[in-house]
């Protein structure tokens, strides 16, 4: 279901494509302000190449993946094999394994359901294919966002969720990296949640 705000042309926008570009630009700049790193790729098949250097730089040895149905799994597996990374699919794991591996893996990759351009936020609707822990427990979280899933803000998210017949047991809005200023008002990035967040925006496809 498409949220209404996505159909509304942006002020000064020429058509659908420029609207989407503006949303992607705004999303990226806002996510960066919240200390997330952002990457833009053309299509989902470009993901393995886009992640290759990043995963190597982070020394990732285990990557937990949720929502693999929307990925180019073969490409990801080849890339992981090349780098010696163990790719673990949530889908194939039992309940307890998902929970344990979420705490033990080096990084996670989850497919984002909706993203908010005005705040650079990634929204996850949790359910069977999208557990909660992979986006909060690992030290690195990579969120994959399809540009068509970009909406404007919390208000638009309210519209989007209210259109649904039933809400999932948990919806999480993630904006940048977990943080605290509890010691001496000193801003520390990476508290209990991921120490680093990478938002990958896919321009085409769903």
């Amino acid at each position: 279901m498409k949220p209404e705000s996505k159909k509304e042309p942006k002020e000064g926008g020429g058509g659908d494509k420029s609207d989407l570009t503006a949303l992607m630009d705004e999303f990226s700049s806002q996510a960066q302000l919240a200390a997330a790193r952002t990457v833009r790729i053309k299509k989902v098949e470009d993901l393995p190449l886009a992640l290759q250097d990043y995963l190597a730089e982070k020394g990732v040895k285990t990557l937990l993946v949720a929502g693999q149905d929307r990925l180019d799994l073969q490409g990801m597996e080849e890339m992981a094999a090349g780098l010696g990374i163990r790719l673990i699919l949530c889908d194939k794991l039992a309940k307890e394994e998902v929970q344990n591996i979420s705490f033990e893996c080096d990084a996670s990759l989850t497919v984002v359901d909706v993203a908010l351009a005005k705040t650079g936020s990634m929204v996850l609707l949790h359910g069977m294919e999208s557990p909660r822990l992979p986006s909060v427990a690992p030290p690195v979280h990579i969120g994959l966002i399809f540009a068509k899933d970009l909406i404007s803000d919390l208000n638009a998210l309210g519209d989007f969720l209210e259109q649904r017949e039933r809400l999932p047991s948990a919806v999480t809005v993630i904006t940048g990296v977990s943080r605290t200023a509890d010691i001496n008002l000193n801003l520390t990035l990476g508290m209990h949640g991921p120490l680093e967040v990478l938002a990958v925006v896919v321009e085409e496809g769903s």
Partner: protein
Amino acid sequence: MKPKTELFRRNARESLNNLAQRQLAQQIAGLFRMLRQFAMQSYPDPKKALGEVAEIRRRSLEELPELLVRFSENAEAAGARVHWARDAEEACQKVVDILERHGAKLVVKGKSMVSEEIELNEVLKEKGIEVYEGDLGEFIAQQVGISPFHIVAPAVHMPVSEISRLFTQIMGIEPTEDPARLGRAARSYLREKFRQADCGITGVNVAVADTGSIVLVENEGNIRLATSKPRVHIALMSLEKVVPTLKEALQVVDVLVKSCTGQKISAYISIITGAAKPWEKDGPEELHIIIVDNGRTKIYSTPETREALRCIRCGACLGVCPVYTRIGGPAYGWVYSGPMGAVLNPLLLGLDRCRDLFEACTQCGYCQEVCPAGIKHLDMYHHYRGLSWRGSTEWRAEKGRIPFGLKLWAWAVGSPSRYIMGGRLARFFLKVKSREGRIRDLPFLKGWFAVRDLPSPSAVTFRDWWSSAHKGGR
């Protein structure tokens, strides 16, 4: 935490003498005020946005009984179990019952003001249940047993060296005064607790009647972990938190975050609707929502006090209050400090125990100007002051003894001639006491003069000036 609001005067004096703490209170207030102003600019019309939230809170309170019933029905339909607790004791007992039924021995908590209000940690400790606050500031405050300095940053007044000593002692780390390294140490230490915990306990920022959802806001990720890993989630919710729709809840959250920490949006917002479904691979198998009254029905049913329940606990009022910004949170002696505390504490603890909190107000009114819930703090304080002099069994206030000076004042202003005469006498007396243009001491007013002087009265009174200036009908 045990209330010590009666000690406000003594504590405030101590805080005023603590220069470092005074500077910190000013610093934190200044920072949050600046960030808040900046965040508000992201609204096309900030006044309108605040007005809308105030209206949501007003309307939600109007419909509170119906909204609570609707919330409870929808939450249960979504798979949560809703419990009602009349007071602190009952609320704690319900938590204990749930934990005992699951044989829970280890609990992790997300920041929850109502859990502090009902002294839950103390009760769980007595029952031999290990409890860890997950929010870093709350964790430090819990370990040291200090009163919170600020609603957002409860342990910000703890010197880094002391936090280092504390962490060295409980986590076995090398001493360090680097806040980032201390944060990492707490992350590693608490991570295992989150992983092993039998139950996660959180508060509720906003509840949604239409969907039975609870909405939680945070920056650290402790609430997300506490609501994702343990098998049981208990959410403590004071009964005024409910609004009609999810859209309205998100509107409240949006303003809450901006007013609270001055962020455009917090790092995490969780919308939780029922327990996790059996086919989900994480999330709690049971979600218990305990709706806590603890005196709120009485506050709700009294027209003059109902407005206090609009509070969304953003703490915007703290940053602008000339009293809070000089003494900080610990002087208030309980969970809620600043104007928020001066409004809520007297109703929750009784007026006599909190008289000095609202008496200390300077009536500047800045708190109500920034309050996104539209609370008229000054009207509330006036009401409390009236009650506390007249006496009220309902709000636990003994009839106040009007001091002789005030009685004399009331008698003098009762007639113009007495007022003029009294004014002349007072001026004469003040001139006698005046030295170098200042009066530094007067009998019966030692307390007032302890921290300030009074300028000498001017040579010509306003009354005399007016009559001479307006001679001839000018």
